[in-house]
């Protein structure tokens, strides 16, 4: 059942331990959220999973295959795609091209095919285009296909990033703060979309700060604080977990020395 497994994962930058002996399982078909205060190491976790960083200790496996030391570009091939906390689109390219590029790992055509333009290559191109358009439709961006990515609104850019990650039909989709900067209506739409993504059989693992969204859609929530996993469970469990409340709202221990 476990799709992605993190086992005793630790990473240190210089003296700083950003992620500290984390054990976590992502189960097939679930929506799992990773939350925690700023600087807790959430994005670092994603960077570890996508092999942008290598763990100092511990193992990360996808369906039993180790991801440690695998080249970043092969991770997508293996079935993990992601979005980024600060949007990373191909801004000077069209929306459609952005999504087509997302299909890269599912294509085969090489230079020779590009130059000979044999029917096989064109069939593949047509397939890519079809997939890309489907993915855009799924995220309600089909009407913007010829716009340049940089001309989209913030919410649209976030959705385009998801469309790009989704088009290659990954096993796991990593969403890094997908709701950041969205207005409440957009967030509602986003929640619905994430649910639909999961319903197509793709496991969703997200980092998010918006608690309404997290509580609303996740089946399980993992909480990271100072690089350590301090809680794991259903939204209800997590919400009432004392450690979590302290991490978020503060311990309440601090007492002002000044009477105000």
């Amino acid at each position, binding site marked *: 059942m476990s799709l992605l497994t993190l086992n005793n994962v630790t990473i240190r930058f210089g003296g700083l331990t950003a992620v500290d002996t984390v054990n976590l399982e992502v189960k097939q078909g679930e929506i799992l959220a990773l939350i925690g205060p700023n600087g807790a190491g959430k994005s670092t976790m994603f960077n570890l999973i996508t092999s942008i960083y290598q763990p100092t200790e511990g193992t990360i496996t996808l369906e039993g295959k180790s991801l440690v030391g695998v080249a*970043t570009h092969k991770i*997508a091939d293996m079935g993990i795609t992601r979005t980024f906390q600060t949007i990373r689109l*191909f801004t*000077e390219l069209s929306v459609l091209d952005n999504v087509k590029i*997302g299909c890269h790992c599912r*294509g085969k055509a090489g*230079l020779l095919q590009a*130059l000979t333009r044999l029917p096989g290559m064109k069939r593949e191109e047509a397939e890519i285009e079809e997939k890309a358009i489907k993915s855009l439709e799924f995220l309600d961006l089909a009407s913007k296909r010829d716009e340049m990515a940089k001309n989209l609104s913030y919410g649209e850019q976030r959705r385009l990033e998801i469309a790009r990650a989704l088009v290659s039909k990954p096993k796991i989709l990593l969403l890094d703060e997908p709701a950041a900067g969205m207005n409440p209506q957009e967030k509602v739409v986003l929640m619905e979309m994430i649910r639909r993504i999961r319903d197509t059989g793709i496991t969703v693992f997200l980092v998010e700060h918006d608690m309404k969204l997290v509580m609303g859609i996740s089946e399980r929530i993992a909480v990271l604080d100072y690089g350590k996993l301090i809680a794991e469970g259903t939204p209800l469990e997590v919400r009432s977990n004392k450690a979590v409340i302290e991490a978020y709202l503060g311990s309440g221990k601090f007492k002002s020395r000044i009477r105000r």
Partner: protein
Amino acid sequence: MKKLLNNWIVQVLLFLSVLALTALSTSIIQDIIPPYLLMIGLFIGINLIMALGLNLITGVTGQLSLGHAAFMSIGAYASAIATVNYDLPFLIGVLIGGLAAGLIGIIIGFPTLRLTGDYLAIATLGFAEIVRVQFTNMKITNGAIGFLGIEGSTTFPIVMTIVVLTICCMVWIENSRNGRAMLAIREDEIASSAVGINTTLYKIQAFAIGSFCAGVGGALFAHTTTFIQPTDFGFLKSVDILSIVVLGGLGSIPGTIIGAIVLTSAPEILRPLANYRMIVYGLLLVVIMIFRPYGLLGGVNLRQAVRRALMIPKKKQAGRGE
């Protein structure tokens, strides 16, 4: 009709007939127009072939190379050696020139393409200087004295046919999976690898194709001037080709074409300016960069712009006009 045109064989025939048409029309033209203008046209063609190659490296893939002249010189010398020392036919020589440059491009690409941005620029520049010094000191190239006795086999129709061929290949590459991967690398390397693009592979591919074009251009150049020396391929030659790409608009094929036409004929057009020519040229580069940092046609979707200009003239133009 539509179905017929979608047939691969028909398309191949169509493509070949375009090439044939180019060859034919240009060979008719070459008898009509004076050799002086013909020669300018020929140099425009040669520069365009090289600039299209650099456009793939710098404009499309976003890897700044300041050593394009080195690949040009490798192509020039390799082809000259092939046709003069080994009596091979001219076109084979051109091919050898391109392949030699492409091969060296790959060999150089592997280590250097790990570098990014300015570091890559300086590494390619250094490499070009090394190549030039090497050619100055080699026996087979006849050092500074120069390589003599190359046949003047380059003709206008040949150059123009290769130009059309190169443009087609570039358009095809840009509109393929490969081309999209290269564009993605230019835009964002980290996001590219996150969607599964092997950035090193595509950078090297772009570098190899770009160097190949430079080599072909060099071969054509050698068989035009009939005599080549290492000093023909200095740093300023690299800058010349880069200026074509940048002036026209990075990543834009029509832009590169315009850049090649403007900058190659500029010395002839600016002839009245005589001594002020290079001063004006330098200023021009600065002014263009300040007012159009992405080049004349950079960021302009030509098809869209033309369509909009023709059909909905009131709507605001897309582009970078901030």
